[in-house]
C-alpha cells in the first residue's frame, strides 16, 4: 500500500496572533523608561560608575547566558573577549584616531572571529577540553596584552579613550549603554524561542538526540560560542568608552571567573538572570566593604557562596523564581485544539524505502554487525529481531549515523546516506526514537516536538513559528497528549515520555521511522496503546523499522521480519514464515 504523495509544501494556515512587537510592547516601554531615567536622573560619580560597570558587564554576561545557559558549553575566557573589544576601542580611538563606532564594530568582529576560531578548534571535544582551551586562550591574550608593548602599550594600559561625539557627557553615555543593554537583552531573551535557540537548548539537554533530530550539533555550538564572544567584545568596547582607561589586569582569568559567577548567580539561562547576577556581584563587594578589616575574608565568603548556589539554586536566583512561575503558568495556559496529523512520507525511490547492503560494524576484533543486508519495503512495519547481543541496536546506530559503518552501503529512498553525519540523515528523512528515552529535559513536551518539526526539508510545515507550533500540536494530539503540551518533560510518566519521543519523530514527517525497543518498560495497557498507535501510523503510509523483544507486539504489528544473530542475518521474510524458521527457533531457544 503506497500512500498518495505529492510531497509539496502545504500552505501555512492563516492564523495570525498579534505581531511580536505588539506582544512585547511592555518590554520596550520599560526599557525606554530606564533609558530616560539613566539620561535624566542626577547621580553622583560613585553611583554612575557602578551603573556603568553593571550595564557593560551585563552585556558580557548575556553572552555567557547564550553559551552556557542556552547551549550548555563552558567559556572561561569571557574576560579575554571583553578585553579584545575594549582594546579595539582603546587603541583605535587613541593611537589610530578612528571613530568610536568603527572601533566598536571592529572590536565585535575581532571577538567574533576569535570565538569562532576557538570554537571550531575544540568544540568537537566538548566539556573539560573546552574549559582548558578557553583558559589557555585567556592566558595567552593576557600575556600578549602585557608583553606586546609596541601594540598594546603593555602594562601601562591605554588612557584617554574617546567616546562618540553624540554621547560625550557621562550621563548620555550611560543612557546609551542602557539602551544597548535593553536591545541586546531583548535579542538574547528572544533567541531562546527561535530555531537557533531551540537547537542550542536541544544540544544542551541531549547532544545525541539533537543530532538525530536534524540539528547540526557542532555548528550550533560554534554559533553559540561566537555569539558569546561577540557580546563580550561589544561589552568591552562600551566599557572602554565609559571608563576611558583600560589595562591588561582588568581582563585577566580572575575576571573571567567573576563573569561566570555573575551568570550562575542570577540564573544562567536568561538575560534577566544575567542582569540580576551582574548587579549583585558588583554591589555585593561594595556592601561587604565592612568585612575589609580581614584580608581575604570577603573572597572566602564569595567562594563559599558559589558552592552553595550551585548546590541549592542550580538555576540561579532568577531560575528559582521563574521555575515557580513556569509551573504555575503551565497549569493555566490552555492548549489550542489541533487538526489531525498528516504524514506524507516522501517517495522518490522505488518500492524499497531502505536498502542496506553488506553492512558491517567492527569494534576492534569484535564483529558486532557483519555483512548484513536489509531491504525495507515501502509502507507497513518491518521488524528487526534477534537475541541479546545479536547486533540489533548497533545496526540501528549505524543506520542513524551515531556509529560510522566499517563497510557497507545504506540507501534511503534513493539517496545514499552511508557517509552522512546524523543530522544530515535526519534531513534526508530518517526519524528515530531511543531505547533509553532521550528527550530535552528542560523543555516542555511541545518544545521537544517543535524541534522535531523543524527538521530541514520537512515539507509538512509552513513558514513561521505559528505553523511550527501547529504541526507540533498535531503530532502531540496524534499520540494522545495534546492537552498536556505545555508541561515540562519531568512531569510525564515513562510511557508518555516514549509517546512524546515518537511524536517528536512524527512531527518531522520522516520517510522512515526507526523505533528502538519502543515497548521496553511499558505495562500491558501501554503496550496495547502502542500497538494501536503503530497501526495508525502505518495507515498513513509511513514505513516503520522496529526493534523489539516483545514477540507478541512484533508478530502482530510487523508484516516483514529480519532476524540477526551474532551480527549476521539468519532469516528474512514474511512474519509467520520467519518465526517458524528452524534457525530462528534454535537461536532463541539456544540463547534463552
Amino acid at each position, binding site marked *: 500500500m503506497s500512500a498518495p504523495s505529492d510531497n509539496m509544501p502545504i500552505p501555512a494556515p492563516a492564523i495570525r496572533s498579534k505581531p511580536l512587537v505588539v506582544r512585547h510592547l511592555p518590554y520596550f516601554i520599560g526599557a525606554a523608561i530606564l533609558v530616560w531615567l539613566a539620561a535624566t536622573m542626577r547621580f553622583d560619580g560613585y553611583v554612575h560608575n557602578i551603573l556603568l560597570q553593571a550595564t557593560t558587564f551585563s552585556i558580557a554576561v548575556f553572552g555567557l547566558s547564550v553559551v*552556557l545557559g542556552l547551549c*550548555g558549553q*563552558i567559556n572561561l575566557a569571557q574576560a579575554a573577549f571583553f578585553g579584545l573589544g575594549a582594546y579595539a576601542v582603546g587603541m583605535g580611538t587613541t593611537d589610530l584616531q578612528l571613530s568610536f563606532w568603527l572601533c566598536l564594530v571592529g572590536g565585535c568582529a575581532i571577538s567574533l572571529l576569535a570565538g569562532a576560531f576557538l570554537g571550531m*578548534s*575544540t568544540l568537537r*571535544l566538548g*566539556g*573539560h*577540553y573546552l*574549559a*582548558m*582551551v578557553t*583558559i*589557555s*586562550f585567556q*592566558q*595567552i591574550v593576557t*600575556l600578549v596584552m*602585557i*608583553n606586546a608593548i609596541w601594540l598594546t602599550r603593555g602594562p601601562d594600559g591605554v588612557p584617554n579613550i574617546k567616546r562618540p561625539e553624540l554621547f560625550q557627557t557621562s550621563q548620555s553615555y550611560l543612557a546609551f549603554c542602557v539602551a544597548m543593554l535593553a536591545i541586546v537583552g531583548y535579542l538574547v531573551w528572544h533567541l531562546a524561542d527561535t530555531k537557533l535557540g531551540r537547537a542550542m537548548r536541544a544540544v544542551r539537554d541531549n*547532544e*545525541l538526540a539533537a543530532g538525530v533530530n536534524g540539528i547540526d550539533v557542532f555548528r550550533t555550538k560554534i554559533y553559540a560560542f561566537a555569539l558569546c564572544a561577540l557580546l563580550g567584545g561589544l561589552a568591552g568596547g562600551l566599557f572602554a568608552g565609559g571608563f576611558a582607561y583600560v589595562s591588561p589586569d582588568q581582563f585577566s582569568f580572575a575576571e573571567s*571567573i567573576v563573569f*561566570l*559567577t555573575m551568570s*550562575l548567580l542570577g540564573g544562567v539561562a536568561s538575560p534577566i538572570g544575567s542582569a540580576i547576577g551582574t548587579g549583585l556581584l558588583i554591589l555585593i563587594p561594595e556592601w561587604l566593604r565592612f568585612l575589609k578589616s*580581614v*584580608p*581575604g*575574608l*570577603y*573572597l*572566602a565568603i*564569595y*567562594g*563559599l*557562596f*558559589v*558552592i552553595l548556589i*550551585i*548546590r541549592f539554586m*542550580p538555576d540561579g536566583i532568577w531560575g528559582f523564581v521563574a521555575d515557580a512561575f513556569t509551573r504555575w503558568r503551565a497549569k493555566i495556559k490552555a492548549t489550542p485544539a489541533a487538526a489531525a496529523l498528516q504524514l506524507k512520507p516522501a517517495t522518490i525511490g522505488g518500492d524499497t524505502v531502505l536498502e542496506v547492503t553488506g553492512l558491517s560494524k567492527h569494534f576492534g576484533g569484535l564483529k558486532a554487525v557483519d555483512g548484513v543486508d536489509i531491504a525495507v519495503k515501502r509502507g507497513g512495519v518491518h521488524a528487526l529481531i534477534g537475541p541479546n547481543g545479536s547486533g540489533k*541496536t548497533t545496526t540501528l*546506530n549505524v543506520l542513524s549515523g*551515531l*556509529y560510522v559503518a566499517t563497510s557497507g552501503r545504506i540507501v534511503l529512498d534513493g539517496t545514499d546516506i552511508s557517509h552522512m553525519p546524523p543530522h544530515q540523515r535526519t534531513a534526508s528523512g530518517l526519524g528515530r526514537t*531511543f531505547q533509553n528515552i532521550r528527550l530535552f529535559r528542560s523543555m516542555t513536551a511541545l518544545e521537544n516536538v517543535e524541534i522535531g518539526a523543524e527538521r530541514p526539508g520537512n515539507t509538512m510545515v509552513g513558514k513561521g513559528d505559528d505553523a511550527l507550533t501547529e504541526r507540533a500540536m498535531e503530532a502531540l494530539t496524534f499520540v494522545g497528549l495534546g492537552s498536556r503540551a505545555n508541561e515540562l518533560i519531568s512531569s510525564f510518566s515513562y510511557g508518555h515520555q516514549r509517546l512524546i519521543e515518537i511524536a517528536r519523530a512524527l512531527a518531522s514527517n520522516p520517510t522512515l521511522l526507526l523505533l528502538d525497543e519502543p515497548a521496553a518498560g511499558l505495562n500491558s495497557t501501554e503496550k496495547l496503546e502502542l500497538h494501536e498507535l503503530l497501526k495508525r501510523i502505518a495507515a498513513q503510509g509511513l514505513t516503520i523499522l522496529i526493534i523489539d523483544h516483545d514477540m507478541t507486539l512484533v508478530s502482530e504489528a510487523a508484516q516483514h521480519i529480519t532476524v540477526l544473530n551474532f551480527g549476521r542475518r539468519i532469516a528474512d521474510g514474511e512474519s509467520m514464515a520467519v518465526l517458524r524458521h528452524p534457525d530462528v527457533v534454535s537461536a532463541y531457544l539456544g540463547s534463552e
Partner: protein
Amino acid sequence: MDLALQLLFTGIGIGAVYALVALGFVLIFRATNVVNFAQGEFSMVAAYLMVVAVEAGLPYWAAFIVALLGMALLGVVFNLGVYYPLRHRTYLPVIIATIGASILLANSVLAIYGPQPQVLEGWFETPGIQVGPVYLDSQYLLIICVTICLVIFNFWFFEKTLLGKKLQATSQDKEMASLLGISVSTMIMITFIYSAVLGGLAGILVAPVLFVSIQMGSTIALKAFAATIIGGFGDVAGAIIGGLALGVIETFGAAYVSVPYKDGFAFLVLIAFLIFRPQGIFGERVAEKA
C-alpha cells in the same frame, strides 16, 4: 652544552612538580569524571600547614606527617562538601563548584595567615651539589626522586593490590563495580583523600624552592592541568610524561625564545595538542556511546 644540561635539569625538576599535581588531577578525573580546579589549592594549603607545624616546634618529619594527615582530612571534607552533593549532576556545576572551592581555600588561608609569603626550610642542610658544569639543587633532586617513587608505587598499588584494583574498577564502570559489591562512594572517598595527599605532597616539596604563598597553587595547577591533557586525559603515565615534557619545553622556550612569554608556551603546546592530537600522547580516542 653545559647550558643545555643545566636547563634540562631545572626543566625536569619543575616538570616533576607539575607531574605530581597532575597525578592528583588524573586520579580524581578517572574516578569521578570531574576536573578538580581546586587541586592547586591543595598544594598551597599543605605548604601552609607545614609552615604552621614547623613554627609550632614539631620536628620536620613530624610536621610532614601532620600536614599530610591534614590533607587527608581536607580530602574528606572536600568530597562531602563539594563533590558528593553534586555527584548526580552534569560536569558543569561540579567544575564551577570546584572553582568556588579554590577561591574559598585560597582566601581562607589569606584571612587566617595574612598575605606575607613564608619561608619553609628544605629537607637537606646543603642547598645543592655541583656536578661538573651542572648545579643540582638538592630540593629538586628530592622532588625528582619522589616522583619516580610515586610512579612505581602507583603501578604497584593499582595493578597489584586489591584496593587498587577496586579503585580501577570503580573508575572504569561504576555500575558494574557496584554490582560486584564494591562500595562506589567509599572508593571515591579514598580517591579524594589520596589525591589531596598527593597534591599536598607536591606543595610541601616545592615550598622550599618557590616559597609559601597564596598564589603558589594556582600557577602550578594551571600548568599541571595542561600537562594532563598533553599526556592524555585520564592516563597516569601520561600525566607524568606530560608534566615533565611541559617543564622542559617551558624552560628551553624561556632560554631560547622569550622569557616574558614563558607561561604562554605551555598553553600554545596545549592548544596544538588539542587541535592535532586531542587524545594526548597516550590516551585513546574517546567515542561516545549511543
